[in-house]
């Protein structure tokens, strides 16, 4: 693969595709830190004019990281589906934006197109889109996955119940699980970030969740977010693994910094599928990503933050995940400075993932040194709800006492379902009704003195 001619608009020139994409990207701290951002607002828009004229085909002949050097590039090129690409193959990036917004871009058309798109094409078109475009098109992309329930159906919003505890104390974790279930959270997954990444700690936490799930017959899945190699280890010891977790990124070098290879992910997927623990589907992987991850590992290969993030979704797509979560504000203000940058990044990530056919959810979150607060999170959460994000995160009171950042709460998820008329995953919603947690109008109004609540409380108190 060779680079083609440079790009230009008026007095501005851009030597290659990588530079053009970086300069066209909406302003954010991480691109400034990396020295990749446009040097003026005018240069940024000039880059967009030039980018709008680039044929989508150019992305198939000019790799951002050389094919020989990077296994993510090889995956993107080798897995590209030319037949699926055909309907848009003669378009420029600007044409492509126009087409995506037309009525011709139906949910069916977008679904068939997904395998024909590369992450670079998708990142490119996102840079020409306003926030409302990102929302409008993402809403048309339906990505449905299943394990013990079905996630991503139109009209539904799932929640990951995140019951973290600084020392993995079983009673503390159980108390947070109970709190989440009573607020209608937990259909995406009950997923714990362990304080210690060891096989023994992982097995103990898996057994804890599995016990309550079986005892009260909850149609959901569990995950302990340890390293993929730890999951492979405990699966060999017959631990009750539903989903295998891994953080992933958009370059080989960044993935190496996470201690992973594509072969490991394939091995883990095979092993988890082989356990046949899913009842209504068998999507067994849970991935997390986030803008800035590659740069923080000094492995961004000179690619802008948003484009390299989108390449991570190509990695995710290969392993048919149940859930992909962009943890959008976790990394800090040197990558996403304030609420405006976090909001933009959350909408971009959701749009890009969905257009590639990835089941995107979002951890709407921030740290205390970012210029953001709960009002910013309310805004992004609501926008993602309108865009029909597959799932969001539920942490007790939005305060993760283990990872020390603010995410969204069980209450926030109730608010979002309520104002937008969204329901939990259907199998989980039926269970919530049986437990008298959802009322007849689909609102979360648990009967705290009912028998179902008492059973839950008894389990939690005993844990």
């Amino acid at each position: 693969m060779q680079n083609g001619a440079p790009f230009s608009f008026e007095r501005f020139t851009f030597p290659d595709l990588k530079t053009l994409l970086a300069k066209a990207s909406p302003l954010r701290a991480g691109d400034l830190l990396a020295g990749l951002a446009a040097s003026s607002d005018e240069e940024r828009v000039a880059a967009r004019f030039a980018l709008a004229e680039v044929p989508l085909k150019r992305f198939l002949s000019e790799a951002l990281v050389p094919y020989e050097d990077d296994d993510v590039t090889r995956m993107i090129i080798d897995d590209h589906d030319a037949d699926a690409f055909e309907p848009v193959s003669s378009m420029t990036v600007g044409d492509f934006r126009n087409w995506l917004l037309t009525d011709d871009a139906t949910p069916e058309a977008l679904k068939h197109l997904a395998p024909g798109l590369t992450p670079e094409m998708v990142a490119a078109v996102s840079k020409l889109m306003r926030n409302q475009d990102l929302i409008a098109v993402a809403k048309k992309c339906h990505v449905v996955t299943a394990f013990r329930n079905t996630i991503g159906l139109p009209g539904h919003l799932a929640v990951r119940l995140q019951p973290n505890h600084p020392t993995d104390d079983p009673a503390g974790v159980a108390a947070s699980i109970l709190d989440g279930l009573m607020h209608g959270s937990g259909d995406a997954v009950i997923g714990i970030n362990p304080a210690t990444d060891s096989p023994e700690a992982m097995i103990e936490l898996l057994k804890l969740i599995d016990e309550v799930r079986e005892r009260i017959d909850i149609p959901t899945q569990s995950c302990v977010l340890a390293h993929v190699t730890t999951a492979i280890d405990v699966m060999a010891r017959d631990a009750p693994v539903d989903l295998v977790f891994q953080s992933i990124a958009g370059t080989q070098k960044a993935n190496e910094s996470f201690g992973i290879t594509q072969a490991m992910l394939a091995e883990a997927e095979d092993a988890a599928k082989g356990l046949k623990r899913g009842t209504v589907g068998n999507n067994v992987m849970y991935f997390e990503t986030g803008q800035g991850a590659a740069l923080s590992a000094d492995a961004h290969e000179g690619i802008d933050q948003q484009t390299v993030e989108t390449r991570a979704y190509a990695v995710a797509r290969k392993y048919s995940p149940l859930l992909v979560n962009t943890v959008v504000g976790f990394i800090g203000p040197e990558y996403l400075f304030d609420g405006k940058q976090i909001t933009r990044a959350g909408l971009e990530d959701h749009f890009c993932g969905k257009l590639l056919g990835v089941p995107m959810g979002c951890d709407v979150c921030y740290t205390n040194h970012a210029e953001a607060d709960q009002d910013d999170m309310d805004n992004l959460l609501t926008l993602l709800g309108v865009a029909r994000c597959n799932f969001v995160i539920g942490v007790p009171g939005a305060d993760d006492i283990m990872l020390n950042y603010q995410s969204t709460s069980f209450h926030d998820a109730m608010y979002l379902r309520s104002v937008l008329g969204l329901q939990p995953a259907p199998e989980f919603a039926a269970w919530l009704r049986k437990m008298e947690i959802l009322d007849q109008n689909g609102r979360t109004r648990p009967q705290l003195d009912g028998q179902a609540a008492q059973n839950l409380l008894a389990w939690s108190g005993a844990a």
Partner: protein
Amino acid sequence: MSNLTNKKIPSGLDPWNTLRAHTDARIGLGRVGDGLPTERLLEFQMAHARARDSVHMAFEPGTVRAGLDGVDQPILDVHSAASDRPTYLQRPDLGRLLDADSVTTLGKHAGCYDVAFILADGLSARATHDHAAKTLKLILDHLGESWSVAPITLATQSRVGLGDEIGAELGAKLTVMLIGERPGLSSADSLGCYLTWGPKRGRSNADRNCVSNIRPAGLTPEKAAKKIAYLMIESRKMGLSGVALKDNSSNPELIEG
């Protein structure tokens, strides 16, 4: 607020009081419709306000200097190349470099020392104001006469990596940096300690040992000082720090070493 909570409790404001004993997580908050009761809402805002104030509070080296009363060492003020807080927050690379004046200051005290202590603002000046001087004094109490200690530096707009430059300029074999950690919602005053053997520019986190969550409600300064002194002694003995240096200080047979 007591007027509000004493009234008849709205439906949904129930709470798993017994379960709260098991976790500091914000469970059993109750609800009003789908939302948070007013008192819970304001409690969260207060916690966030305190955390943010800790991040943005100006570092006052004078406060720390006063707390070091009785410590028989020269005390030097240094500043990173990040000129102000907004720059510091967006340019972690500049927070790891000394400004020109500081290089000159340190050069005047260059020598050959066993250890250089650095008290730095990091992401919570409040943590440094409240706990750094006390923790340092406790560490010094644990060290014997055999340690040659460099002038103590008070570092403004500092990242952890700034200690590498300071240690190298002073000519110290080991640096021990006490620095404000990124505040959590319920831990706005948490101090961290980083030990680095052979400080020089380009050291990575794998080369350091970290003792975290130093605050009265977390790892107390007394316990932290004991742990840090243990690590210092072992580091000097082995001539290294980082992943190869294990913290066995909780083993009572080893702490006397």
